[in-house]
């Protein structure tokens, strides 16, 4: 069994931009099919979806805890597998609730999305789930091999560098693979490092209309299968740090021996 945590970068500015070739509705549809495909893989596959909104991160859906009333409220549909229906209904509903409208919250858009929070929560859930799995006995239980898929549209938030790296390292310790699917915006160095350090793959979707195909071929298979069916891995990661004072990326500079704050010529 494998566990997938999906991190959706829901930056309204990016998604409500009419000029983009990929509309949010279609994007959501693709994601839903992808999630269904993941659930379809095995009866035991589990799923957790987190939304990174400007300034806050929310768990949108989790197949682990059945406490959610949403499960039962949806009427069964004779033409659709029940879990799929539950998931889709719940997810779309939650996103509609949480997604800030661009017109209403203009100042909220200024904030970068809370990717770190979402990532941290995803890891917490992973560890909790792990402890839950191991609860019955101390035998080497078949731990669900879990991975995290980050669908990112917004650029790096230099402010969140350190916490982001910390959570990446903990993911490394937990052997959680982090995949990154970049849809809009410039390549994010931080996420590239995340993918590189955890052995995931960082893929930039060029042709948006075939997003689903990208998802299916690159991000669906669990790590154990990747050793047999290769996936494009990260190329050209850049390991430059951010200058602490101007927050811009430097490739050679000075590092304080005490606090390790790195800077270019500014000090």
């Amino acid at each position: 069994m494998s566990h997938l945590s999906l991190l959706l970068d829901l930056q309204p500015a990016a998604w409500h931009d009419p000029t983009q070739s990929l509309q949010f509705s279609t994007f959501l549809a693709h994601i839903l099919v992808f999630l269904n495909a993941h659930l379809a893989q095995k009866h035991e596959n589990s799923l957790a979806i987190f939304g990174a909104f400007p300034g806050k991160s929310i768990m949108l859906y989790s197949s682990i805890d059945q406490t959610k009333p949403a499960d039962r409220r949806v009427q069964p549909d004779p033409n659709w597998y029940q879990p799929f229906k539950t998931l889709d209904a719940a997810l779309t509903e939650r996103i509609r609730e949480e997604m800030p409208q661009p017109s209403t919250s203009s100042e909220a858009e200024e904030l970068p999305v809370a990717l770190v929070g979402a990532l941290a929560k995803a890891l917490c859930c992973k560890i909790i789930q792990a402890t839950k799995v191991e609860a019955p006995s101390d035998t080497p239980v078949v731990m669900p091999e879990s991975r995290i898929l980050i669908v990112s549209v917004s650029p790096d938030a230099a402010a969140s560098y350190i916490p982001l790296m910390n959570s990446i390292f903990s993911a490394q310790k937990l052997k959680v693979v982090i995949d990154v699917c970049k849809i809009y915006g410039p390549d994010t160095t931080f996420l590239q490092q995340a993918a590189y350090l955890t052995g995931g793959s960082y893929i930039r979707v060029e042709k948006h209309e075939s997003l689903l195909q990208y998802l299916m071929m690159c991000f669906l298979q669990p790590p154990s299968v990747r050793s047999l069916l290769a996936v494009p891995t990260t190329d050209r990661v850049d390991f430059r740090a951010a200058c602490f004072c101007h927050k811009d990326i430097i490739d050679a500079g000075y590092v304080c021996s005490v606090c390790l704050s790195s800077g270019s010529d500014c000090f």
Partner: protein
Amino acid sequence: MWRSAFAEPSMPKDPETAGQQDAPHTLIPFLQSQSQTALTRLYTRPSSCLAIFRLLGPIERQIVMSLLWLEGPIASQTLNGWVTKEGRKPYGTALDTLSKIQILPNPGTRMLLNPNFKASFRMALTGGGDLNSFGVPYVSSKEKDAERDGAGDKKFGPNSEHLDSYALERWETILHYMVSSGTDSTPQRPSAGVLYLLQRSGLMQPLPSPSGYSTASSRKTSQLQISSLGFQFLLHTPHEQLWELLLQYLKMVEERQMDLVEVLNFLFMLSTMDLGREYSPDNLTQTQLVMLEDLRDYGLIWQRKSSSKRFSPTRLATTLTSSTPLLPSSGGGNTGPQGFIILETNYRLYAYTDNPLQIAVLNLFVHLKSRYPNLVVGSITRDSVRKALNNGIRADQIISYLVTHAHPQMRRNNPLLPVTVQDQIRLWELEKNRLKSADGYLYTNFAAQADYQVVLDYAKQIGVVLWENSVKRCFFASAEGHSNIRGFIERRSKDEQM
């Protein structure tokens, strides 16, 4: 610590490697043997596609998924490009399986999924269509108005606990009947249909009755007795057992004039149903209505009464396509997915269970000494093992059973079972067949070495020589070779005379 002189018993697979050496599901070969038209019909229903997809191995699944959303065919090289070096072999076998079950008809050059499969599987993922292939939920009239004012359905028919207990009770009735059939104790008999199935599958055989063997009578009256196949069956995991029975059921389908595709469709529909929900049998075909009763006997389906207009699948049914232990507590509660057996180097065995079925199974090869509320103490003795061996159980099966049901405490030590006990069990098995016998003829008293040589060579050609001794100038050949050898010799003697 000295290693076992024999092959280690297969340890539980770790998730990493599990992806690579997954044995194909028992159903896959059966599907492969089916006709193309049948499969194509099968693939018209989304639920069946989903279920079959789940039975496939991880690589097959990935291949299907990669191809699913492509409109046109792609060159096979494109996909080969993704395969790593160590992935080649499993990839090849995966393609083979897929083509055999007609999902990927000809993977040789251009890859294109079976159109029906593609269409319905897409439908399964995205929803839609009007095939009702995931079962029509039962909606009573008052619930209908309840929905209208949005209150949702409050009553869910039976709750899952009740379903579990029911399924467990039914299932263990069958197994328990098998176990204790040899002994004098007479537990409650499963329904006639089940008995017939057990007998047909060769898991049980009728006691030789003076009236002479006849299916009709033996089905009703004569006492059934478990066969060696049955004993082996008992040591399998519930999941395997269930599928073995179902496969047998499928094999019997034709002679019962049932439509195989409909049967499969129904099974797969059950497997995708929602536990604890009630479904209405209205739009089931005649065949499937018949199945409804059979499966009720096996404990896959629960109905308030045979005539009721609704049914709900039990966990046995809904987890058909999963690999998890079928019933949350497959017996007695305190065992669960974890094991319950502790085996010591001194051949003593402690089983933390109060489940009569498990105790009965243990009784097959363990000499049980004392019984406590939740603990059974026994020891593996030569006699107890020999009894099992005489019943046709093999040593490996005993060992694998002990391994799979070993108590968490045991999993710490490696090898999991005490090596002494393992080897001893195997030795006892060897000891049983110290004497091998073969019918045949001893050819001896050859006048000339040449003759001997010629005949021997010929016999070797047709591969019937079991023993030879050139000094004594004689050899032993199995009976079936005799006619040929005699013929050969006669021909030669003719040649010599002329």
